[in-house]
Structure formats: structure tokens, C-alpha cells
């Protein structure tokens, strides 16, 4: 089917035991996709967590995903950031590259161009920290592969709508 699209959905939930299992169980139980999922408490006073989930599907499936999420008892709000106006999305990656000589220098040079920071280095390795869109991270990681990429850790997408409105 050609009308499969990628959507970023923000979900505000009570930060209580099992809530993430409920969300993940819903996706696996109903056969929906998870491309990435991030979660952290965003309001410690009232124990609210925000989940950002990137998923894909036909418009009908995306509508189902949102309705099913909204039906979970600890869920406060579900927003489709892809549909509702403009939003910004960022992802953070830690990228370890090992090597010596020219390759090492080249990796550092590219890191500079991509505005990745070096947060750890040894004589034969770097750990870069990089924030950006998923595509930018993909591109950088792709370039690091022939230069001695050994390990990647990514957060998955976090997203927020543009403008003054809250969720």
C-alpha cells in the first residue's frame, strides 16, 4: 500500500508502574509498527511522563493507533504532531569510532562539519555526541562506517510542536 506514512505521536501519561508496558503491549498486540519510542518524566510534581513514538501506517491505522492509545486509562493526551501543524524533532546519538591515522583525522574533520562534539577520546577512539534530525544522524553514522564505526547509541526521536501552544 502506498499511503503508508510516518507519524510522530506525543502521548502524555501518568508515570506509574506498567504504563510503558501498556503502550508497548498495545503496539505489539495489535501489530502496529514502532520505529522509535522515547519516554521520560516531564512533570515530577504530578508524575506525568511524555512518550514520543514514531510509527507508520495508513491513515486508518494511524487513526486507530491514536484512538487505542487514548483509551488506555493512564493516558491523558494523545497528539499527532505530524498532522497538527508544524513541529520540531530531534534525536541524540552517541557514536564510537575507533581507528588511527588518516581515518581518525577524517572522522574528526567530518564531526566538525556535522557539529558533533567529542565527549570521550583515547589514542585510538572517539565518542561523538550529536543532536539533530534522524536523517542528519543517519548521514553522519553512514559516513563513520568506513572510518571505524564500532558502536552507536541513539535516543530515538523527541518532538514538540512549534509556537506557544502546549500539548
Amino acid at each position, binding site marked *: 500500500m502506498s499511503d503508508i506514512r510516518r507519524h510522530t505521536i506525543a502521548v502524555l501519561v*501518568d508515570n506509574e*508502574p*506498567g504504563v510503558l*508496558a*501498556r503502550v508497548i*503491549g498495545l503496539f505489539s*498486540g495489535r501489530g502496529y509498527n514502532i520505529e522509535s519510542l522515547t519516554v521520560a518524566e516531564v512533570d515530577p510534581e504530578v508524575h506525568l511522563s511524555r512518550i514520543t513514538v514514531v510509527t507508520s501506517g495508513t491513515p*486508518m491505522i494511524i*487513526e*486507530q493507533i491514536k*484512538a*487505542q492509545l*487514548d*483509551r*488506555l*486509562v*493512564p*493516558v*491523558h493526551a494523545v497528539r499527532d504532531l505530524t498532522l497538527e501543524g508544524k513541529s520540531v524533532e530531534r534525536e541524540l546519538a552517541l557514536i564510537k569510532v575507533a581507528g588511527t591515522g588518516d581515518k581518525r583525522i577524517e572522522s574528526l574533520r567530518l564531526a566538525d562539519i556535522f557539529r558533533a562534539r567529542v565527549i570521550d577520546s583515547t589514542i585510538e577512539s572517539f565518542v561523538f555526541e550529536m543532536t539533530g534530525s534522524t536523517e542528519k544522524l543517519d548521514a553522519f553514522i553512514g559516513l563513520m562506517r568506513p572510518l571505524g564505526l564500532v558502536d552507536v547509541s541513539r535516543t530515538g526521536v523527541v518532538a514538540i510542536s512549534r509556537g506557544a501552544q502546549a500539548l
Partner: protein
Amino acid sequence: MTDQQPNGAEIVIKALVDQGVDVIFGYPGGAVLPVYDALFKQNRVRHILVRHEQAAVHAAEGYARSTGKVGVVLVTSGPGATNAVTGLTDALMDSIPIICFTGQVPTHLIGNDAFQEADTTGITRPCTKHNYLVKDVNQLARTIHEAFHVARSGRPGPVVIDLPKDVQFAPGTYVAREDVVHRTYRPQTEPDPKAVAAAVDMLEQAKRPVFYVGGGVINSGPEASKALTELVRTTGYPCTMTLMGLGAYPASDPQSLGMLGMHGSYEANLVMHGCDLMVAVGSRFDDRVTGNLTKFSPGSRKIHIDIDPSSINKNVRVDLPIIGDAGATIAAILAEWKRRKAKPDRVALKAWWKQIEEWRARDCFRYEATDRVIKPQYALERLYAATRGRETFITTEVGQHQMWAAQFLKFEQPNRWMTSGGLGTMGYGLPAAMGVQIAHPDALVIDVAGEASILMNIQEMSTLAQYRLPVKIFILNNQWMGMVRQWQELLHGARYSESYSDSLPDFVKLAEAFGAVGLRATKVDELDAVIKEMIETPRPVIVDCCVDQKENCFPMIPSGAAHNEMLLGPGDRRESSVSDEGMVLV
């Protein structure tokens, strides 16, 4: 000391009383002994001891569905909880409000593979509407009140409360029901007035309309059925019901088309196929109802009234969704229709009914009448004739007998028909009937059963005996797992793999062994007397009604076929009736 704090177990009882619960269904074990001790010391909440935890949940379902109240279950940890899982799933699929307390090992042992430990909240997460593990006794009362709110509001469903044993012993603070409001869970019940107006526009313009009504109307309460009946009669439009919706509109009314779907009536399915306006009320476009989705009701605009937004556009795209309680929404539509002094298109409606009467004249439930052998349909016709006019509640098991019961028993009111629709759980009917009989001690409660299904919870005969529940079990004994045999005949070249009910017990003796009355009918001319005796016996009765072993259930929409591709009877068996895609469907 009067100001002594209650312990967790006592809080459970207090909260139940506060919630108006007077009966619970359960089975004890190590991890719930404190609650059983608290039960022992009081007499406000009655406990019904079942013989298997699955039956406790089905009994609570029967209780809930026949009263509109929440059914309550109490089981122990580990095997108690896992035995309850089938019942919980059943209640989830059919939207039945249930609270199920499960015992749990003490909090400090959770995760240690302790004796009779199971990850109950983990196991039941996908088969409950919500679940809780209570680790702090001071949260217990609040959690229970919240759980009742979740179970009964919106689209109802089962809620599990897992109770570690140390929490049951610990003293804590009780919070009253009225002091607990749920932070977030407040489903929309009142419909959007704009949507209501749009619905009336569409109703006015319709030329070939139909109301397609499901269990949501029953769940909404008897007022919803009343409002629906008035709306259907005011408009003059036809009304068909799902398996779960039977009773929402009086079956004997000429505007009723009976049940639709896989084994529904010819006229109901053709009306669904040919309509230009479909008004779905508390029904969910289930695959047993729609048949082949790509060919489903191709020429209609669709209104879908449902309290659960996730039901909308799940299987079928609709033109006008209305989120709201079925009763409140129908009442609003009715009020708007009256306010406008709306009129249906008389000419179109007359032509529509003429067409419907032609379909109805096919008499799709007709079967070959004979005095050679008891036809299952005939047995149900006689059962219906004998129970008409009495306060009768029917439960069923799962199989052909269930479909025949849906076709041949007529329900004039809601809450009189309990069957396992979504999950199709063999073994549902007997325990459900127990729950119904507990709620309606003087009513006639009949479980229409198959000889295979009844064996799945037959141990509950002992519960009937203990509580002197005069439930009647009417077995349509065809010596086959008839529905399985029918599919094998149709789809698997009549290779009857493991579908014969071999080594059956003597059901008459079995009844007697449990202290009940056993009766048998093998000949047509014995049937009426046996039914009469069954009804007049003020004790539990098993009737072994030996019926035609070969009979199949028609009409039938084969898997993967459309509404207008029904098979009407054995002579109608087209070789190519089931497509390759249809073969893989359940």
C-alpha cells in the same frame, strides 16, 4: 477501640459494600485467606463458592449482564489468577463490567518465583480494560473505587486488582466512594449536537435505511432499548441486531429483521448489503457481522454511534461518527427528529419494505420438519413456546446450538440473553446461568448447551447443588462438535478430524450424581413432556435432548463471502463458495 484502622482485607469488604455489591463469586487459596477471613466475619457481602475460577468470572458476567451491575470475582494468586484469564478475556471482548480481585504473594517476595506467584498484572494486561497492583494499603480503597469507575463507565470491561498478602494484613485508611474521583478517565457520553443534527438530516433523506444495533445498547441500560424502540417505530425503518444486541429491540415486532451476520437472517443481511443508510448503534462491525469487508454494504452512507472512539473507522470507514452513550445519543436523535417534525420518504420506504418482505418470504430459517428425529431447531421452537410469557433468561454455550438459539428464541427485552460473542468461549453458559440465577432467584434460567461445551465447566453442577440454584441445562446433544463438523464438511472435504464427541457420559446419571434431575428426550413425541417437566421441576435439571446428528446451521455466509452470497441451506452448497482467502479466515 472504635477508631482502630481496618486492615487491607477489611478495606476490601468496606469498599464493596460502599459500591453496593451484595454478592461475589470466588474460590479461596493461600494468598487471599485474609479476605476470606474478613468475609467470614460479616454478612453484608455474600460469597458464592464456584468450582473453578473461570466459572467465577463467567458467573459474574451472567450476573452483570442480567442486572446491569458490576460483577465481582475473588480468586487466589498463581493458578487462581491464570484460571480466571479466559473469563477476563471473554468479558473484555463482550464489554462486561467485572472487578476481579486476585491474591498475590507478599510484596517482598514479588519477582522471586515464590510459591503460587504469577505475574498477574503482566498476564492480564492485554485481557483487561485496566489492572492494578496495590502495594500500599493506604491506596487500596481509592484503587477499588477507581476500578469500579473504570469497569462500569465508557465501554465497560473487566478490571483486575492484584492484592499482595501483606497488604491484606496491613492496617490502613479507608476512603469513601464519594471522595474518589478519577483524575483522567471520563469518557464522553453526551453526543455532539451538530453530529446529532447531521444524523437526522441523513435519516430524513434515506430511501433504504437500516438500524444495525449491538451490545452497546444493552450496556447502556434498559432506557436505551426503550429509546431505540421508539426511534425505530417513529421512523418506520427496519432494525437488525448483532448476537450481542438481541433483546435491544423486540424480536416479535414486524420492524425487527432478527440477527444479522454469518448465521443471521437472509433479510437482515440483504438489507445490510442493499441499504443506502446504515445506522450502527453500539455495534462494532465485527468480522462475523460484515463478512468480506471489501464487498460490505457498498452503496450505503454510514452513521456509527459508539462510546468507544477506537471502534470508529476500525474495520469500516463511516461517514458520520458520533461518540457518545448509545442511550443518550438515540434519545437526542429522537428529540431532534420530533422537534423538526421530520418525516421519512414514504414512497421510498414503502418500496424498501416491499423488497424486504420478498426477502423475508424466503423463510430462511426453514428446516426439514420430520417426526423421525428431533431437529435441533424444532427442539428450540418447542422450548420457546413453553417458556414464552414467563420471566425467562437464556444463556448458551458455543457452537451450532448457540446460533440456533439466537435464531429461534425470541427476545422482547434486553438483559435476557447472555452468550459469549466476541471470544466464543465453550463452557460459558453454565456458570453464566448460575450468575443469572443468583441475581434472579425466581426466574427461569436456561443454559442452551451442546454436549461438548457443557463438559468444559460441568463441575459447576456442584455449585448449583450447593446453592440450590434451579438452573436448567438444555443440551442439544448431536454427539458432534457440530460447528466444527459443519466447517469440516464445508471446507475440509468432510474429513471429520477429532470432532466426534466420543465416550460421552450418561447425562441423566451425571445429573443425578450431582444431586440434580436428569431427563432425556430421544423421540419427537417425548419432547414437549420433557420440556414441561424441566420447567416445572424446582431444582437444577439437565435435559439430554438427542437431536439430529447431521443437521447444519443455515443460513451461512461462508468465510470471505459477502452478505449477498449467503448459503441458504444444504441444497445451496456451491462448490466454490469458499475462496482461497476465505479458507484462512476463522
